């Protein structure tokens, strides 16, 4: 047993006061704020946010500050790049990442390519999330509140979703892209389409779980109508996993969009650099200039890693089992 000296007593009291004061102002106005507070204290969330912050910054304003035009074949014009002779110079003081196979400045192309990658990732995820949540939301609400006919509708919707899930996602994306012909919109739709069943399943499951919650019973006991219970009680409580999935889908969407571009199903316009296509172009020159493949590959990996870090941290922050 330690004796409490006056000094330590004060220290202890101060600590207690801190603890007592903390919940008063530290507790946010909502669960979301509570989750945000926990995110700020999670190192992997911070790491993910920093990576994404840099990526978004580069994508947003980088193209205005690039040293060279990403389409200017300066290396060929000045004779430094001669791919036929096997000469593609690597990094130098003027060209930080060297030239690509057409003598364009690789660094400028990487920076401008970030914008394309972000655009495709965000739009594709948005498409997948909206369509998926629409299907999942209808199915979940119908299952929980719609009686026998609702359960039938849910079964039909979910079988369709299961069929989409049963196909390998890249195969599905390739089929869609091949069907629509190569273009930027195709990539977005195809990558979005493969995220649809994931969101649908997720929101439906989450809503069905919430439909059994006590507050739904309490609201029903107060005579609240079904559509209102679905929209203002069940839905807001079911969105946390969707938000987490959104972050994780952004990561896979970027990789999948790159894969489609790599396979030549992306934007056919050669003037817009895109990491996936840069990777595809680089494979012919792997022996001469392996860097051309490494830069976009590493950039894709780091970006996807950033989204994954943030998504995992969000999952932890929003997990009700870990909620204090």
């Amino acid at each position, binding site marked *: 047993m330690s004796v409490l000296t006056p000094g330590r007593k004060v220290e202890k009291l101060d600590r207690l006061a801190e603890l007592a004061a903390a919940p008063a102002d530290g507790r946010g*106005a909502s*669960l979301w704020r509570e989750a945000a507070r926990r995110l700020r204290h999670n190192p992997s969330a911070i790491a993910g946010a920093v990576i994404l912050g840099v990526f978004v910054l580069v994508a947003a304003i980088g193209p205005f500050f690039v040293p060279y035009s990403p389409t200017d074949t300066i290396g060929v014009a000045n004779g430094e790049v001669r791919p036929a002779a096997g000469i593609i110079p690597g990094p130098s003081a003027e060209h930080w990442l060297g030239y690509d196979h057409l003598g364009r400045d690789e660094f400028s192309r990487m920076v401008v390519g970030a914008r394309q990658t972000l655009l495709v990732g965000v739009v594709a995820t948005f498409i997948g999330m909206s369509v998926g949540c629409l299907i999942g939301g209808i199915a979940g609400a119908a299952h929980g509140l719609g009686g026998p006919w609702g359960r039938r509708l849910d079964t039909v919707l979910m079988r369709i979703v299961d069929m989409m899930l049963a196909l390998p996602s890249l195969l599905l994306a390739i089929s869609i892209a091949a069907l629509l012909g190569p273009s930027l919109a195709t990539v977005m739709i195809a990558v979005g389409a493969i995220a649809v069943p994931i969101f649908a399943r997720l929101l439906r499951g989450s809503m069905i779980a919430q439909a059994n*919650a006590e507050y739904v019973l309490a*609201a029903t*006991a107060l005579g*609240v109508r079904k559509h*209102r219970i679905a929209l203002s*009680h069940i839905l*807001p409580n079911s969105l946390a996993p969707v938000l987490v999935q959104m972050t994780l889908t952004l990561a896979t969407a970027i990789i999948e969009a790159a894969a489609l571009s790599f396979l030549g199903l992306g934007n056919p316009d050669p003037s817009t650099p895109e990491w996936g296509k840069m990777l595809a172009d680089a494979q012919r020159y792997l022996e001469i200039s392996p860097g051309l493949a490494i830069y976009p590959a590493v950039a894709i990996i780091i970006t996807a890693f950033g989204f994954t870090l943030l998504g995992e941290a969000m999952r932890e922050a929003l997990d009700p089992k870990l909620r204090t």
Partner: protein
Amino acid sequence: MALLDVTDLSVTFVHRGAPPVHAVDGVSFTVDEGEVVGLVGESGCGKSVTSLAIMGLLPRRGVRVGGRAVFAGRDLLTLDDDARRDIRGREIAMIFQDPLSSLNPVVPIGVQVAEVLVRHRKLERAQARRQAAELLERVGIPDPQRRLREYPHQLSGGMRQRALIAMAVACQPRLLIADEPTTALDVTIQAQILDLLKELVRSSGTALIMITHDLGVVAGLCDTVNVLYAGRVVETAARVPLFADPYHPYTVGLLGSIPRLDRARGERLTPIPGSVRDLLPWAEGCAFAPRCDRRTDACLDGSPELTRVVAPPRAYRCVNPVRSAPATAGEVSG
């Protein structure tokens, strides 16, 4: 005529591959206008299921409900969904056991209280909000304007239960069903909530069905008490005669198992041995017989009928009651 007349209510849970479970097995009781009626019994005796059946809140699948529950001339068990939704919250409201899980965690208190008013009173949002503030004040929540904007997790347990009570009484229902409203609360808060309920019932003339396993709550609140055992009412009486003069051995057991101030210190409580039997407790004789110390051979000879005593009014389901009723002309079987 009684406000609510429950006759022979039965609820059976049917599960594929398992024998059906009779959770409520022919429960009858009445609630008069403005009366406080207690449903008392241990866990699993069917008291909560009874209230959910009256409210029509049991799931459709796997549940069979029988009997009648006539509320103000209409049988609640045969109403269609729309009519039922109109009654819920406006004419019959319910208070649940766990106030935290009964409130939507991501919606502010004010929106949840106003929702009931918008639904049943057809009020405008702003108007409903003003009334919500008044309601919170009425149930004893200080600084209601601030509380309206707060989320359930920011309120204390007692505050949450007060908010739920505010939602329940928002439309001045004629009947309130409180399902163990104090079980999840601290002892000091329990007393406050009971006082609040008592005050609301007295001032508004609302009838109240109090579901509890706590005889202390019954003693402080109820006019009439129904003791449930294994899905049936085993004794019904007004509060005073029930406590002073219990007839059924189970009621005696319940009273014997709670500590009392007027008993000697160190005296052991007398628990009721065993637990409720499952499945078909009343199929062969009295369901309480295996745990009863007054068991006779007659107890296992068919299920005991309800015996009614006219004055003072009471009913009990026992062939060998603790205090046998005087064999007067008032005694009727059935």
